[in-house]
């Protein structure tokens, strides 16, 4: 979970200056959550740990390329992790059997007035906006995020024509950005 007290940007800048202690603090703060996501994407702990290892090494080596005027440090770190995980998934070329129960649950999770209020008060903008999408637009976005599936894989998982899936994702993302910018 993001810790609002933790200074991700300052920590990355310290890493760029070669501060090993800062990197270790970042590891202690974030490695568990990063591993949780990598395991969900890759389906296997050993591969997820390899992915996390590679991502962390990259974070250290590229820390000097982080620029706080472009965005938040934690987002930058996860962009590296997810990029690695997606490459690993693509090069593996086959899917793991996964239990998508929690994704189904989130896909079913339509907007209720009280949820929207609590999401808003807790700053969960994306959850709030996702809930406002219709299920057929929400579900493929969740499959892409949590399982790293391609358009084709999503189409076959949901037994829906490829063109329809592409259109729904695009429309879903546009609706999301409208809601997020509002």
């Amino acid at each position, binding site marked *: 979970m993001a810790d609002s007290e933790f200074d991700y940007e300052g920590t990355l800048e310290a890493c760029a200056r070669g501060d090993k202690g800062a990197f270790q603090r970042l590891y202690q703060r974030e490695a568990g959550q990063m591993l949780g996501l990598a395991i969900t994407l890759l389906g296997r702990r*050993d591969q997820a740990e390899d992915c996390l290892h590679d991502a962390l090494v990259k974070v250290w080596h590229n820390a000097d390329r982080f620029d706080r005027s472009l965005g938040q440090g934690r987002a930058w770190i996860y962009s590296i992790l997810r990029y690695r995980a997606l490459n690993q998934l693509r090069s593996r070329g086959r899917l793991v059997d996964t239990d998508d129960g929690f994704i189904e649950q989130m896909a079913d999770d339509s907007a209720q007035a009280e949820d929207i209020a609590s999401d808003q008060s807790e700053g969960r903008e994306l959850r709030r906006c996702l809930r406002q999408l219709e299920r057929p637009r929400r579900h493929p976005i969740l499959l892409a995020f949590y399982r790293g599936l391609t358009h084709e894989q999503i189409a076959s998982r949901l037994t829906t024509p490829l063109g329809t899936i592409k259109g729904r994702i695009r429309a879903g993302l546009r609706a999301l950005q409208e809601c997020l910018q509002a």
Partner: protein
Amino acid sequence: MIPEAIEPRRALIGEYVLGLLEEPEASEVRELIAQDRDAARMALEWEQHLLELADELPPQTPSLVLWERVQQSLGWTPASQATAADAFAGWWNNLGLWRLTSGALALLVLLSWLPGVMRDAPSSASFTAVLQVPGESAKPGWVVTVDGDGTLNLQSLVADQIPANQSVQFWTLIDPKDGPRSLGLIEPGKGTTLSAEQIGAVQAGQLFELTLEPEGGSPLNRPTGPVLYIGRAVLIASN
């Protein structure tokens, strides 16, 4: 073709961040993000929003060797140490396992009075190790006893639920130079007995641990999953 208008462009970058674009479109967007600060900002904005989804997932404790591996890859530890055995040795030395702990010792003393935990009149040295949740001295889970004949007995104090597609594996480490040695898979909540031949000579300070591994055990000759319980052998009697 990357749209010029802001909103379609932002949506396309969202697709890229989700990993949905294929070549050559993916490369085009990647290049745009590398060159155009506004595009880079949009990509990080998407990533920032998507963090909410990542944070819905429970964190997972990395295996203890991961931090050692990362340090080795960064060249922070001498190259001569770049082996799994030494990674293991790193946390052997670093984790303050010797702090294991006043609680464990108190329990040990208590156990030593229980019948069955200690064998009668050992013919040679006997040992006990209380295996605890790492970093939580008040959570003993298993007890290892090695009697005077060298027979090892592992007893459970807890009934943990293990996911159906995973296994619990029992390990020991005598000398960090040799690396950890598997002592086989363990049924959660059930103990096991190993003969002196299987276990070899036990020494004071020898490390025992249980790790969570893929079904059927670690694919490597070292633990790959998180440590569930860990403890060191303590000499309780010698003749």
